[in-house]
């Protein structure tokens, strides 16, 4: 079980800020594939992962990173701080 968080337009497209996901996905990209298979809104949010960033337990990571031991996964567009 992982907590999955969505921010900015990813949150808007999926329609919720976070959810608990029961998954056996080995990597982030495997989790994305599972989510995309759920519903159209996930497919729309994850259509182009080059436009997305991922954080694992609040540290920036990569889509091929393993999920073993990870409690919190966050998906969001490139950041625009400052």
């Amino acid at each position, binding site marked *: 079980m992982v907590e999955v968080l969505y921010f900015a337009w990813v949150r808007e497209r999926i329609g919720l800020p976070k959810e608990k996901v029961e998954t056996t996905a080995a990597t982030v990209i495997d989790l994305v594939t599972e989510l995309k298979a759920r519903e159209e809104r996930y497919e729309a949010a994850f259509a182009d992962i080059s436009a997305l960033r991922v954080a694992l337990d*609040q*540290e920036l990571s990569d889509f091929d990173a393993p999920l073993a031991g990870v409690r919190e996964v966050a998906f969001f*567009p*490139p*950041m625009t*701080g*400052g």
Partner: protein
Amino acid sequence: MRVVVQPDPFDLGAETAAFAAGRTDMGAAVTFTGIVRDSDGRLDRMEIEHYPGMTERAIAKIAEEAQARWSLGDVLVIHRHGTLRPGELIMMVATCSPHRGDAFAAAEFLMDYLKSRAPFWKKELTADGAAWVAAKDEDEDALSRWSR
């Protein structure tokens, strides 16, 4: 080091005056202030979203990196989130060092990294509707000059 992430306005004058006060070994203090810009008179407001928890950690990590690279007496980062109107202050950074070179370089480093490595997202609301601000390639390119 002090990192503050808050929705409320901050007092730039008071923060600047208090920063490095009493540090007689510091000969230079640099401050940068980010302001909500309305380029064409159409912006009603900006909404800034962030990732509570990760935001504070990411900024602290960037500030620690700055402290490792330059001789700094102190670092201050204040960044707001929530709804901001044109002209409002979004954020500030302050650095101090014995000589000005380190304080200037560190402030610029902090800003370059805060732009694209601190989890904030800006949405602009105009009469035409709402649009997320897209990250710019040059913001990403700006990081390459700090690689070593």
